[in-house]
């Protein structure tokens, strides 16, 4: 920076206004209403989105290797060979993150009697009628998704490891590798259906996407979708 020295030195600005004293409460600069209810912690949200990003990479690369019609997707990864090398590493990272996240949620996903009612009422709800009362933090559909994803990710991880060339596949008998690739593909498509429903449901029930991006839901959202959970968390609040 040669002209650094030639710059005229401007007089120092008047002393800055002292920052306002920090109040005891932290106000959000975003549109979060003051009475919003926290649904997902920052840690949960970041883990969720890391898993989601890894899933996108796995889905795209897996699809390119499954069906020649989608082989062009490999170009997104630079070269097809690099894509093939990357896929299993991302798969392991995905599984580690997924199970770290899932381990925090298992208790809230245990089934309870209200879930039976919710499932009976599920198709009415899907068709625009009111949702059956949900007791816990998650409804029966979310719980079904949780447990099915546990099975799918475990299956995909194990079968994927079995055909991981060059590290593991050479030690696996050919029959084992043949069974593994078939299960891997079947589970991948079941998982796609699950993830598709998951994403659509998040868009369909307005406020859910914001819950996973900003962490909060409105009181009405909480009261409507998860009344049991709402009552439990608001019980601790001071009466206003």
């Amino acid at each position, binding site marked *: 920076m040669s002209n650094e020295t030639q710059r005229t030195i401007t007089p120092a600005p008047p002393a800055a206004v002292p920052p306002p004293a920090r109040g005891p409460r932290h106000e959000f600069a975003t549109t979060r209403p003051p009475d919003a209810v926290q649904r997902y912690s920052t840690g949960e949200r970041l883990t969720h989105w890391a898993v989601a990003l890894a899933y996108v990479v796995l889905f795209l690369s897996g699809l*390119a*290797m*499954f*069906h*020649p*019609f989608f*082989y062009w997707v490999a170009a997104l990864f630079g070269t*097809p*060979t690099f*894509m*093939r*090398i990357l896929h299993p590493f991302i798969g392991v990272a995905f599984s580690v993150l997924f199970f770290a996240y899932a381990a925090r949620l298992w208790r809230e996903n245990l089934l309870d009697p209200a879930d039976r009612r919710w499932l009976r009422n599920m198709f009415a709800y*899907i*068709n*625009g009628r009111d*949702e059956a009362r949900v007791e816990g933090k998650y409804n029966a559909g979310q719980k079904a998704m949780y447990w099915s994803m546990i099975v799918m990710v475990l299956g995909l991880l194990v079968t994927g490891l079995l*055909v991981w*060339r*060059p590290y593991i*596949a050479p030690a696996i008998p*050919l*029959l084992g*590798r*043949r*069974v593994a*690739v*078939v299960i891997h*593909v079947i589970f991948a*498509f079941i998982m*796609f*259906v699950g993830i*598709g*429903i998951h994403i*659509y449901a998040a*868009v*369909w*029930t*307005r*406020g859910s996407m914001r819950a996973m991006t900003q962490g909060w839901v*409105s009181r*009405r*959202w909480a*009261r*409507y*979708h998860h009344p049991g959970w709402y009552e439990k968390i608001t019980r601790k609040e001071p009466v206003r």
Partner: protein
Amino acid sequence: MALESLDIRRRSASQTSPPDVRKHTEVAKLIDISRCIGCKACQVACMEWNDVRDDVGVLDGTYNNPIDLTDRSWTVMRFYEEEIADKGLQWLIVKDGCLHCADPGCLKACPAPGAIVQYSNGIVDFKQDNCIGCGYCQTGCPFNIPRYGVTDGKAYKCTLCSDRVAVGLEPACIKTCPTQALSFGTKEDMIDIANARLVDLKERGFDKAAVYDPSGVGGTHVVYVMPHGDPALYRMPREASISPLVGLWRSGFARTLGVLTMVSVVVAGFFHWMKVGPVDPDARPPREEE
């Protein structure tokens, strides 16, 4: 592709036909096990013509050297000692390597377009510059032939000297064989020679002598004469065919089902939205109890 010296009949992971107007005579290599003396000249010729040199391996107490096929040993003589009823101890020498199936499992399993091709003369060839190193060709092969380079991660196997055949030469192994255990020509001629040889062998007491041209993979472009008949003695599958698991995994049915599954999820979501619209407790008028 059209400018290659050999036209391509089938190409891995490709949905449309490669240029296909020229039909070439199907070629085949005949391996007459009854004439083979196990001199390994074919191994040497293969290394020399294809310019591949394997590492110096270990001696495992047999004549097998190298012990197995590798990325740089595309053909290997395998020596088996077999006690055969009313023949006594027999020393069976099998030249192992790619059989160039008419219906190749490797090509079916391969996800990389053009990494495995089948020329119109029947030779199945790996194109390493398209190979992504996934290992699926091993999964697809009924004969456990493809091997991977340690440093480049690409699959290799016998090319049936497709470069030599393209210019009217016989494969290097054929040229070097001192006992005429190996012959090369049209598939038709090779089958004729093999059948004539069976007559010879049967006259000499090899009643069970048979030709190995497994129909489960549509026939092969490497054909064996097996003096004792049973392929299992020579460690070859009696009923060679692409595993039904691989067939299912790579079938048009499975691929179409997969795509239809994805499309139906998207379509279902689209129309559900159009019919029901979003659930939004914040937007609806408050109920009485609220």
